[in-house]
């Protein structure tokens, strides 16, 4: 028995995946949505939650994070099961259904899978030389400030995460030092102003050279980008907020037919694997356009065609939403 059993498993909670969840629910299918990130929204949440989007049909202008919230709300009546912080790495075809396994060991059985993996799983960009200290004083995300109480903390990075975490740690940690390779921070102007008025020690323009310590972090060595001079900053804890990189390889390992790291689909959004469909940025076919509105359409096509694989008696056309009462 798998840990989770559903009609449709959606891999990737970006805009395409969230719309697939809605459509699966609308078709009366039970659905789970899996994403490696701790939050839904895909690229929008990871890269541009505050930007305004102007090309979503029906919305003259919509803020990224509001679009994500609306998509989640639209699917909510059908109670999709969200499996967040889970990376799908394994696939096996069992004839009547498929089994998908995750890095954590979680298993999901589904009658159809819709892969809406976009540009792949987002992982924090590793701090060079930091591998051995991961979990021993080096962290890439800060879900809570409590473990940092009374410690000397160094935060590396210049974006919103770095600045927000440094500000959040101020007052909790014994001291906070923020290091960045440029003099300018690309975080929100408001956050940068708060930073200037804070007690946080800001060191720029420096890049990290090495993490030092015997088993646990004891200091960070940084080099001045201009003068090339190195200095060592003693610390108990290190937070590297160097952004994210996307990796498609966990999905390629399934045996999906790909071209330049995109999944080849036919006009029904079916892939080469039984019961596996794809939609959104991850698909490839002649004339493909990578936009949210295109992903929405593909998600609808994928789910409605998957419905006929799940139940051969079912029709591809779902009926008009205007006809039925919502769940």
């Amino acid at each position: 028995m798998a840990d989770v059993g559903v009609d449709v498993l959606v891999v990737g909670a970006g805009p395409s995946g969230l719309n697939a969840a809605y459509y699966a629910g609308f078709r009366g299918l039970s659905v789970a949505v899996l994403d490696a990130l701790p939050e839904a929204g895909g690229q929008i949440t990871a890269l541009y939650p505050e930007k305004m989007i102007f090309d979503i049909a029906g919305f003259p202008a919509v803020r990224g994070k509001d679009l994500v919230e609306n998509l989640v709300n639209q699917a909510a009546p059908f109670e999709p099961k969200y499996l967040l912080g889970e990376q799908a790495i394994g696939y096996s075809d069992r004839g009547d259904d498929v089994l998908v396994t995750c890095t954590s060991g979680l298993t999901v059985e589904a009658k159809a899978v819709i892969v809406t993996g976009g540009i792949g799983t987002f992982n924090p960009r590793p701090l060079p030389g930091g591998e051995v200290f991961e979990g021993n004083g080096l962290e890439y995300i800060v879900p809570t400030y409590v473990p940092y109480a009374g410690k000397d903390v160094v935060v590396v990075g210049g974006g919103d995460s770095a600045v927000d975490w440094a500000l959040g740690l101020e007052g909790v940690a014994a001291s906070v030092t923020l290091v960045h390779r440029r003099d300018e921070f690309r975080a929100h102007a408001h956050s940068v102003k708060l930073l200037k008025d804070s007690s946080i020690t800001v060191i720029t323009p420096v890049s990290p050279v090495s993490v030092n310590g015997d088993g646990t972090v004891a200091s960070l060595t940084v080099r001045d980008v201009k003068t090339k001079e190195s200095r060592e900053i003693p610390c108990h804890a290190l937070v590297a907020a160097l952004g994210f990189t996307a990796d498609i390889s966990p999905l390629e390992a399934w045996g999906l037919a790909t071209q330049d790291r995109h999944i080849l689909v036919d006009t029904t959004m079916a892939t080469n694997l039984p019961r596996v469909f794809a939609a959104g940025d991850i698909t490839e076919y002649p004339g493909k356009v990578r936009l949210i509105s295109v992903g929405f359409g593909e998600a609808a096509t994928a789910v409605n065609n998957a419905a006929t694989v799940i139940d051969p008696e079912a029709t591809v056309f779902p009926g008009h939403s205007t006809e039925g009462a919502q769940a």
Partner: protein
Amino acid sequence: MTYVITSSCVDIKDMSCIEECPVDCIYEGDRKLYIQPKECIDCGACEPVCPVDAIYPDRTLPTEKVVDKEDNRVFFYDVLPGKDEALGSPGGSMKTGPIEADTPRTLELPPNPDAD
């Protein structure tokens, strides 16, 4: 559609853009950095962090820099001097590390006076 690194990057190679790129599509040549046009997702994160303003979207390249677009393509799809095969689309510069080559055009450019 993609971003392009122009020749202002030659001999500078600040590398800030590489840290920003969420898809790791900026590759390090000997004298300059290059963007893999098929891997670029057009997010624009690299453009503002370049200290020498070398990065442009290919749609708004100033006329005298249009050649740089072709040069970025050449870096990946032609066989570079000293190499046996074209780089293609390796799927991330963290995997490849520095490429240790340049396009013929970059090799011929004079030393950048702005470099130290």
